[in-house]
Each structure stands twice: as structure tokens, then as C-alpha cells.
């Protein structure tokens, strides 16, 4: 096969390597969707949103700028901490304390001429649908599941059959140590982040009675200091997990408790790790995952090669602990997904349990993970977290059993949570058989 001609955009000498690939069909390129002559100008016009300017975000901004994207926005409300410098390569010692989004955007614009990056030192929840509607693609490098669920729900809700371009592909990366994942979501068309929620189950919490009376592990002593001792003694008005003085207080409390029970292993580093739920992170893994995400962004935007998403695989798992291993597969969309499905999701419950049991369980169930849920049944309000008056009015329901509240097997319950303002999660109660 003789190589076809490339269609260079501006600065052909500089973008030679990129144009050779993005404007020329290869053996796997789908000829029905690929127009090589239009790729450069279309990508010049595209708006891409990057969420997160941390470990993945820094890499993502660099990668997008060197993939031919010209208009990029980045949202991050965080400021730079010294512990970021081992991997967030756009930041220096002198930048500590400054906004990540601002410093990262300025750095990449300085280095890669011709790219325009707008920084937003804000939370994603500060923006409305009109803002998100401006973008053709969203790339996420976040460390919180909650933020991922929020943007996912927002993008799914924005899909409107009557509005062209209302489907915004969402590319999401995540890392932990030597492991990570990259996935592509085409809202309402492919499996969404909420469909995949059970793949990121929260860590089981240690029972309170273990912390209070029978600690066995150093982590139990630290959690005791964090959850119980702090509340009792209130050494500072509000716990600031980034204040070394506060961590030191917890560490010393935990150490004394550990000594009382002869439990070895409480250290400052472990205290910090447990209290802040620190996930190990290195430059190398961020490099892998961010590049995997941006590689999909380039393929989706140019159609120069098949991308993850639709119709085939949409999820790549990566592990570098033991050799290097990837598992790339298709995660199926769920009909009972509370965000993108149209069926209520089954929720197995004990009919003799109280509403409080149900409310508490929603926080820990891998398929729900809702920390402040308000619940409505078909024709009545069961429990509302706010406003205060309604909370007070519905609070007595918490101690009633589901049966007492008139709920039956198969009834649907709608759950809302302040973390996901726009979404109502639909669950279908399935009564557990007695004596199981």
C-alpha cells in the first residue's frame, strides 16, 4: 500500500509526525467516518475540557497540546502542595500554594506555542450545563469518585435528541500505585461511570465498637484518635487534614492508645495516610494512564483509527505490579443504572429493618455509595436531609420498619443526594426472605 498524502494544517514542519497519522488513513481506519483533509481544521476548532490539574491533569494538558488540540479549558480548585512535586511536573517548589489550574495552564502555553488554555480555579459544581455544552470532549483526571459521578450524571442528563452535539464523550483516567484504568463513556450510548460503580467499591469501614473497645491494628488506634478522641477533646476548632499540627495531635493520641494495648506500628506517615486516605501515586503510572486517555481523545476527534468507546471495548485496566498487564474489554451498559438506565435498580432489603438501616446501608453498598440520601416512595416522602424543617418532620420515620412505613416488595424508591443535585436514583425494593 502506497502511503496516501498527508493534509497538513498550520505549521506543517512542526506537526509533521502528527499529520502523518491523523490525516492519513491506516489499515484499521474506517473510511466511512474519516476525512483526512478536514481533520486539522476541525481539531483546531474543537473545545476540550480537562477536569483536574493534578497528577493526571498535568500530563493530560501536555498530551492534548501535543496532539493538535488548540482550545482547552481546565478546572481544578486545588492549590499546589509539596507532596505533588514527585509527579506533577508542571509545578516547582516556588509554586507551592498557587492554584494548580493556573500554573499548569500557563506552563503548557509557554512551552507549546499556539495552544490556548483557560484555567478555572473552581469546583466542577460551580458550572452549569450551558458551560459544559461548549465542549466537544471531556477528559477527567480526578482522584475522587464523587466528582466523577457528578460530571458523569451531568453529561448524561445533558443529552438531548433534538440538540446536535449534546452527546459529549467522557474520557476518564485513574491511578493507584503501579495500577490504573482508562475508559471512554459515550453518554446514554455506552456504559457510564454509574454503571461501573461497583468496580470501585469503597473500603469496608471498621466497626465503631472495634475502635472503641477492642483495637487490634495500628489503623484502629488512628481511626479512634480521628473519630472519637478528636470529637471528645476538640483540640482545634476544625480538623484540617493538611495541617501538620493537627496530624501530629492525632498521631500522638493514636500512639498512646497503641501503647496502652501493646499494638505496634503507629507512625506519623501511617497516621497521615489513614486520616487523609492517601493513595500512592507516581509519575510513571500517571504518564501511562493520561496518555492512554489522550490517545483516545485524538482517535475520537480525528477518526484516524478506531477508538475505545463504541461499539467495541470501552475500558482498559492496567497493572504494573507483576510484569505489565492490560485487560481491555467492553463494560456493558446497565438497564437498571440509576443515571443512564430506565429501570429501577434492585435493592435487597430486610422488610423488618428500619428506614435508618436502609439509609445507612446506602452509603456502603458498592452499587449505591450515597452518603446523604433523601428518600421518596411513589406517593410519600420517607426521609429528607434538608431543609431542616422537613428533616425534623421526617426524622421519626427513621426508626420505623419498612413494613410499618407501608412499603411493599417491589416498590420503587427514589433517592436524591446533595452530591448529585441533578440526579434521582431509582431503586426497587426486593424483600429478603426470612431466615436467610
Amino acid at each position, binding site marked *: *500500500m502506497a*502511503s496516501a498524502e498527508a493534509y497538513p494544517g498550520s505549521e506543517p*514542519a*512542526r506537526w509533521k*509526525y502528527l499529520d*502523518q*497519522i491523523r490525516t*492519513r488513513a*491506516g489499515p*484499521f481506519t474506517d473510511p466511512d467516518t474519516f476525512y483526512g483533509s478536514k481533520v486539522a481544521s476541525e481539531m483546531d476548532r474543537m473545545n476540550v475540557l480537562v477536569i483536574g490539574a493534578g497528577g493526571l491533569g498535568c500530563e493530560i494538558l*501536555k*498530551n492534548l497540546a*501535543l*496532539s493538535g488540540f488548540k482550545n482547552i479549558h481546565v478546572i481544578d480548585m486545588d492549590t499546589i502542595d*509539596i*507532596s505533588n512535586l*514527585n*509527579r506533577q511536573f508542571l509545578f516547582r*517548589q516556588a509554586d507551592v500554594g498557587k492554584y494548580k489550574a493556573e500554573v499548569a495552564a500557563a506552563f503548557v502555553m509557554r512551552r507549546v*506555542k499556539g495552544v490556548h488554555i483557560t484555567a478555572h480555579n473552581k469546583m466542577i459544581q460551580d458550572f452549569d450545563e450551558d458551560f459544559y455544552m461548549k465542549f466537544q470532549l471531556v477528559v477527567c483526571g480526578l482522584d475522587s469518585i464523587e466528582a466523577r459521578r457528578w460530571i458523569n450524571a451531568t453529561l448524561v442528563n445533558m443529552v438531548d435528541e433534538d440538540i446536535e452535539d449534546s452527546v459529549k464523550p467522557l474520557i476518564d483516567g485513574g491511578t493507584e500505585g503501579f495500577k490504573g484504568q482508562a475508559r471512554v463513556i459515550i453518554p446514554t450510548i455506552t456504559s457510564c461511570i454509574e454503571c461501573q460503580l461497583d468496580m470501585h467499591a469503597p473500603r469496608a469501614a471498621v466497626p465503631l465498637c*472495634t475502635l472503641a473497645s*477492642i*483495637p*487490634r491494628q495500628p489503623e484502629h488506634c488512628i481511626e479512634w484518635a480521628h473519630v472519637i478522641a478528636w470529637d471528645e477533646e476538640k*483540640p482545634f476548632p476544625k480538623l484540617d487534614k493538611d495541617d*501538620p499540627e493537627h496530624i*501530629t495531635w492525632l*498521631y*500522638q*493520641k493514636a500512639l498512646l492508645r497503641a501503647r496502652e494495648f*501493646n499494638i505496634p506500628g503507629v507512625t*506519623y*506517615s501511617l497516621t497521615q*495516610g489513614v486520616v487523609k486516605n*492517601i493513595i*500512592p501515586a*507516581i*509519575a*510513571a503510572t*500517571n*504518564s*501511562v494512564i*493520561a*496518555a*492512554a486517555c*489522550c*490517545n483516545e481523545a485524538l*482517535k475520537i476527534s480525528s477518526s484516524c*483509527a*478506531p477508538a*475505545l468507546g463504541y461499539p467495541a*471495548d470501552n475500558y482498559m485496566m492496567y497493572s*504494573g*505490579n*507483576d510484569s*505489565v*498487564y*492490560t*485487560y*481491555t474489554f467492553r463494560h456493558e451498559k446497565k438497564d437498571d443504572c440509576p443515571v443512564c438506565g430506565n429501570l429501577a435498580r434492585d435493592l435487597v432489603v430486610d422488610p423488618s429493618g428500619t428506614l435508618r438501616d436502609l439509609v445507612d446501608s446506602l452509603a456502603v453498598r458498592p452499587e449505591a455509595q450515597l452518603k446523604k440520601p433523601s428518600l421518596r416512595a411513589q406517593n410519600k416522602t420517607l426521609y429528607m436531609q434538608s431543609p431542616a424543617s422537613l428533616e425534623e418532620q421526617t426524622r421519626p420515620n427513621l426508626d420505623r420498619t419498612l413494613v410499618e412505613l407501608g412499603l411493599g416488595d417491589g416498590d420503587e424508591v427514589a433517592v436524591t443526594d446533595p452530591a448529585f443535585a441533578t440526579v434521582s436514583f431509582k431503586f426497587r425494593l426486593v424483600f429478603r426472605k426470612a431466615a436467610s
Partner: protein
Amino acid sequence: MTEIVMSQTPPILHGPSEKEKKYDRQLRLWAASGQAALESANLLLVNSGPGVVGIETLKNLVLPGIGRFAIYDEATVGDADLGVNFFLDADFLGKSRSKCLTELLLELNPEVHGAWYPSQENATSLDDMLATSPVFTAIMYTFPISPQRLSILEAYGQQHKTPLVAIHSAGFYSYFRIHLPGAFPIVDTHPDETATTDLRLLSPWPELVDFAKSMTQDIDSLDNFEHGHLPYVVILLYYLEKWRETHGGANPITYKEKTEFRSTVAAAARTNNPEGGEENFDEAVAAVLKTIVPPSLPSGLKEVFEYEPSEPIEERSSFWIVADAIKAFYAKHNCLPLRGNVPDMKAQSKVYIQLQNIYKAKARLDAAEVLETAQAIAPGRHFDPAEVELFCKNAPFVKLINATKGGNIASASSVDRLQDVTAQELANDESAELTLMPLSLLPIYLALRATSHVASASADEILAEVAKIIPGANENERIVQAAQEVARAEGGELHNVAALTGGMVAQEMIKIITKQYIPIDNTCIFDGIGSRCQVLRL
């Protein structure tokens, strides 16, 4: 331990140092020992072609604080570099690429040292540079590379026993290949915590038996609190004893026996309490299948036991002496030294700590025996007891990489090997639809390999080159497609694929330098179209 005085607002007593703060997120992965190894490493990158993948690799090693690096790169900065390499900008056009890259990489971490070649005041050729530089910990080189230059590096690798890493990135494809100088054992493999439980329930030692008996001799008269807080280890030991009494002294071994045993444990839980059951018995039931297992020899360790290092005993590293000592231990006791960790389980604090101490004491005793044996094997040699203890603790998970005798770089048989693997991979592809296995990525390696020494080539040229080794390659559809895809790139790199590959190579370098986690053995191929990789031993 130091005394801690609690005052109203305690001063920061043991806060981390600035360096510990900066490296906190990685120290949680490889600890101070791994960090020290990184900081004493000296790496060489021989860069060529667009040269992005090598720089992205170095970026990921400069950030965590590699000791020093050197870049050998004869290119000057051109326009095309600016569209693909982040560590160059327009001010550098026409200047030495290695100099500019070194400058901008060093900005990332003031603790790292870097040097660039060739330069007039320093060495002017690769030979010069290798002859005048301190010995390199490892060498990375990128394709395309001239055969002459490659043989210089291979000769250096053989002489100094230096790991060599070959990296090739073009368009959507890449691969990297690690040549280690001989067998490479790793002790600190960081196995999954859940895989490490070894409670010796079928071969308890006297102290453990006595402890369990003392807690269960009047099990029925224990009050509900005590009964509900028996550690599951004690519960299982007690009911195993009962089981043996009614089964002619035999343990439950088969799956059927174990499920039956599990039912007897489940039935022994008290239900006439407010909770209607006992958590510790639930834990015991859940632990039956996983923890009631006879001792066995994991395959990784077996490989170590069977491997015969080519050096005489006095020249062997302490790894091989301790391995022999553990082998002797295994032969004598029919089990490995005890790891000594006890998973968390419902129990009173005091009881759990006692149980933990019984396991730890036994583990220390086993390690002491291994140390003694090691000293007998190599008299006069000093062994670090902490190192022996770590080996004992990790014995079931030690791993031997590149376990061929001699470990020749570019051995004469490498073409035979490639032919064998190709035949195997292509045969697997025939049945891939049935086995639901992904298709082999070997065609990508074959196509890239065909351009090892040329800047770019047409699909036909690539196929002709592949066909020299794999006859008929030009009729295999997947090899043809891979050749077309490689030809499409004309030797150019895509930044994303370079960054991704650079991340993988950096992970591997960290694993090799720190001797922690498990490196690939020995070639990793990446497909940026399907977004997946495959590791093959070639």
C-alpha cells in the same frame, strides 16, 4: 521508643522532613530502601529518531529522584521536534538536542544530576563517553539505531553486566525489550496482602496448640462475650482437633471434606444471643477453604530452588546462599519458614496481640535457623539478619526473572526463539475466536523490528524484511496490516504513545533499580489502536 509528652498544643515532634514530604506518595510504594537505590542509580539514554519516548521515560525517573542521568543524542533540534517533544521549545532550534533536553529535564528536580553528549569539551563519540563515564546502572536506547552503535552498547552491557533496555515507538505502536545480564531474582515482590495469609492450621507448633487449647478447654461454658471473641484461628484449631477425633486422625483435605467441616463450624456458632449469630464464627467459616491447606512449594520459589547459578559459591550473591538455606529448611521441615503475619480478625485486643506474638516468635525462630544454615553454607561471610528475615517472610513470593543460563545478550538462538514464538502466537490466533483470547500483538513487534536500523520504510520493505525471518509473513493479513500501520508513521512518533510507553519503561526501570515488584520478562508490545499490551519472552 521515645517518650511522648502530651501537652495542650503539642509541638511537631516527628514531622517528616522536606524530602520525605516531597516523596511521600512514592515512599508508600517502595519505602526508604527503594528510594536510596533510585538515588544512587546512574542511567544512560542513547537517543535517536524523534527521540520522544526516551525523554518521557527520563521525565518519569527524574521526578522521583533518580541519582543521575546522561543523554547521548547527536541530533540538533528541528521544527518537527517542537510538535512532539515537550522538553524543547523554539529557542532551542538548531542547537544540540541532548543539551536542551538535559537542561529542561533538570528543571523538574533540583536533586538530580544530568550530563549530555556529544559535546566538544566532553566526549565526542559514544565510545569516548562510555570510556570516560562512571559505570552506568542501566542503559536505555531508542530505535532506529545503527548496528555499529548497538554492538558498542551490547559489548558494554556484557562487560559491566549492565541491563539494556531497547525502546521503539512509531505511530500507534511501540515495544520495549529488557536484556538483563543473567538471572535476576527479586525478594521484595509486594504480593497482594490477601494472598499472603499462612496460618499453619494443619501443622500448628506447640506454642500455638497450647494457646488455642487454653482458650477452648471449656468452650461451652464461656460466656457469650468470650465465645463471640474467640479468634477464628483458635476456633478452627479447636474444631480441626474435634474433626480428627472422629476421622481417624485425618484432617479435612478434599473439597467435600472441607465443606462438611465448614458446616460443623457454622453449626457451632451461638444463635441464642441478641445478634442472632457470631461474627467470629462467620469469619472462621469464610476462612476454611483458604486457610486449611497443607504447606506447598510455590512455583516461583521452586524455580529458584532448581536454578543452578553458574558462579562458584564464594562468588554468588547472598540471595543464592539464603535460597539454599531455605531449600535446606524446606527439605528438613517439609514447610517454608513461617511468614508470621496474622490477618485482622474479631478478637479481644489482648488475645489478638498474644496470637500475633506467637506467630512472630515462630517466624523469628525460623529465620534464625535459616541464617545459621546460610552461615554454614558460606562460612566467614556476613549476612544481614534483616535481609534474611525479609527473604524468609517473602519466600513464597520470590521471583526469578530471565532464568536462562548465562543470560546472553543477543544470543545466537534469538532468531530461532522468535520463529518459535511466532509460530505459537499465530497458531493461538487461529483459535482466538473460540478461546475468547485477544489476538497476538507479535505482528506489531515484527513490523517495528524490521525498521530497527532505518528511519522509515514502506510496507513492502517491512514485509520483505520480516519475511527473511518468518517465511510467508507477507501473506499473513495481520502482519501485513501491522506493516502498513508502521509504514504510515514513517518513523514519526505520536506524543501519546511515546508518553504511555515512557511511563511503562519508567515503571520497569524503577522495579529493576529498586529490586521491588516484578519486572517484565522480557518484551512488552503496545497497540495504541486496541489500547492494550502483551508481554512475551523473546
